[in-house]
């Protein structure tokens, strides 16, 4: 009996040890275990809601009820909804103008920061501030700057004798659109500038020296050295920029809530308004889902941008 027990126990522990060894040797199994926490969180709170959102778009769900399947009824009602189409055109306008402005101003700032200036590190550090500070809180500062009565811009322009009356920054459609775009550009410039600056610093100075010796003008150096070398990083940075501008919510929510008369409603703010205060989850989900085709286009752009970068630099995979 004792002998049998004796004979059995070491065998068991041996088997366990061998199993443990096999386990730690198996990269596939171990990889699975290591991936588990991240994968679980992302599947439950990202992949599942993504699918759920698509599904909700086909139902008449409310904040209280799960709703019934209604086919493409939500999409049909959106297609006949002028406010929806206004929000789509607003979003496209907002994204195109703001992204273009962010790109040109950001590139300009990056080129300036790449020069030798006193307190270089300090200047670079404070340039990023608008991007670090919570958007909602800096948007509140802009809200105050855009105040009808007490705007500091109006005060300054009046002081300079450029205008007589006060400017109604957020009161009429055109002004409100310009104002929110300016605030968005203000917040977005640092990200573009610092990312492009990192790209600029990887361009060897010898290229510029060689070009200068060959008699290239500063425009030619920019056009034929800087721009081509920077293209891959521009592609990635602008993809992110476009993505975040397209899905922007905070700035509009604070500054205008989509007003006046929906002229600044973006797809994200309209989806929020219909789904959460309005309680029509299904309709909101359909509206939010209709952003996906645009986002997929942006991602494809990014993917090919990245591919090209690898090829250009010749790095390993």
């Amino acid at each position, binding site marked *: 009996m004792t002998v049998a027990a004796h004979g059995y126990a070491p065998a068991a522990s041996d088997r366990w040890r061998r199993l443990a060894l096999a386990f*730690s040797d198996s*990269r*596939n199994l*171990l*990889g699975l275990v*290591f991936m588990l*926490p*991240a*994968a679980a*969180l*992302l599947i439950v*709170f*990202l992949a*599942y*809601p*993504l699918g*759920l*959102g698509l599904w*909700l778009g086909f139902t008449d769900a409310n*904040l209280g009820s*799960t709703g019934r399947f209604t086919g493409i009824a939500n999409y049909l009602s959106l297609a006949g909804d002028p406010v929806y189409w206004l929000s789509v055109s607003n979003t496209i306008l907002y994204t195109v103008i703001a992204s273009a402005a962010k790109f040109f101003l950001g590139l*300009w*700032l990056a080129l*300036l920061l790449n020069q*030798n200036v006193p307190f270089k590190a300090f200047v670079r550090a*404070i340039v*990023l501030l608008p991007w*670090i500070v*919570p*958007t*909602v*809180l*800096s948007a*509140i*500062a802009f809200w*105050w*700057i855009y105040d009808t*009565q*007490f705007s*500091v811009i109006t*005060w300054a322009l009046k002081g300079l004798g450029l205008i007589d009356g006060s400017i109604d920054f957020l009161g009429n459609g055109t002004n409100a659109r310009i104002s929110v775009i300016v605030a968005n550009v203000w917040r977005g410039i640092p990200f573009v500038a*610092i*990312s492009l*600056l*990192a790209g600029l*610093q990887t*361009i060897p*100075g010898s290229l510029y020296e060689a070009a200068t010796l060959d008699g290239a003008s500063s425009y030619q150096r920019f056009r034929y050295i800087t721009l081509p070398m920077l293209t891959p*990083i521009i592609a990635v940075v602008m993809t992110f920029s476009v993505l975040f501008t397209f899905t922007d*919510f905070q700035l509009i929510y*604070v500054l205008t809530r989509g007003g006046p008369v929906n002229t600044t409603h973006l*797809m994200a703010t309209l*989806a929020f308004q219909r*789904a*959460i205060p309005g309680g029509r*989850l299904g309709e*909101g*989900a359909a509206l*939010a889902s209709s952003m*996906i085709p645009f986002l997929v286009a942006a991602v494809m752009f990014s993917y090919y941008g990245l591919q090209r970068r690898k090829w250009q630099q010749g790095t390993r995979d």
Partner: protein
Amino acid sequence: MIGRKAKAADDGGMDYLTSLPRKVVTVYIPLAIFLFVLLFPFYWMAVTSFKSNAELYDLKSGNPLWVVKPTLQHFKHLLFQTSYPDWMWNTILISTVATFLSLAASVAAAYAIERLRFRGAQPTGLAIFLAYLVPPSILFIPLAAMVLKLGLFDTRAALMLSYPTFLIPFCTWLLMGYFKSIPFELEECALIDGASRFQILVRIILPLSVPGLISAGIFAFTLSWNEFIYALTFISSSENKTVPVGVITELVEGDVYHWGPLMAGALLGSLPVAILYSFFVEHYVSSMTGAVKE
């Protein structure tokens, strides 16, 4: 790396080719305008929060760009008559928990993808990158439905669990870049000496990637601190709100805007991330550019 060295080697480079007056016009003046525009809103925020109401609403006499009689009344109002301290505490708590949760999950995931190279590691890496591109604006509606069903509505746990959806992809992507730069030989030596994979991760990889961990951590903290749409959607009671949501929903009463407390609230809410930022500037810049470059 090579680029930076080359840059350092010819610092000053062709600078001597540009004359000073030319540089003033093409570099210093535009740069000064950029800095002024980028920083003015913060200055205006700070100046406003220290003004008394009488001074605040008087543009006629004196210069509004300066404070004549600084007062702390708005800060006092904020701290003692609103739930601002609660919001601050919630924001700190939620950001810290979400950050550590995401970092732990990301370290393991990044190690698995970059170092274990299990079958399917590459598609998984791509999936993580794609997950980073899914914006909260299209997730908040289904997440709100989920949060309601799980009974997490109006709890801080709802935010602690939903923030990792954008933190994990970012941190994993960043840490993958860091892990890639650590030589494989170190791991091979440890394996020959009989270390387990877990020991390698804890004793070799993690100590070597401390800068990467700090970058990912402070960045994740900042992103959680700034988050708005989930907090706005999932939280309804005042004592559970975060700073951005509390300031915008509770300090604005009807059509009466209390600009003093609003600006003070915005300033106080920005300070923690600004201070954190000032200590870790280099980490911020490297994590931002790292995420873009990798």
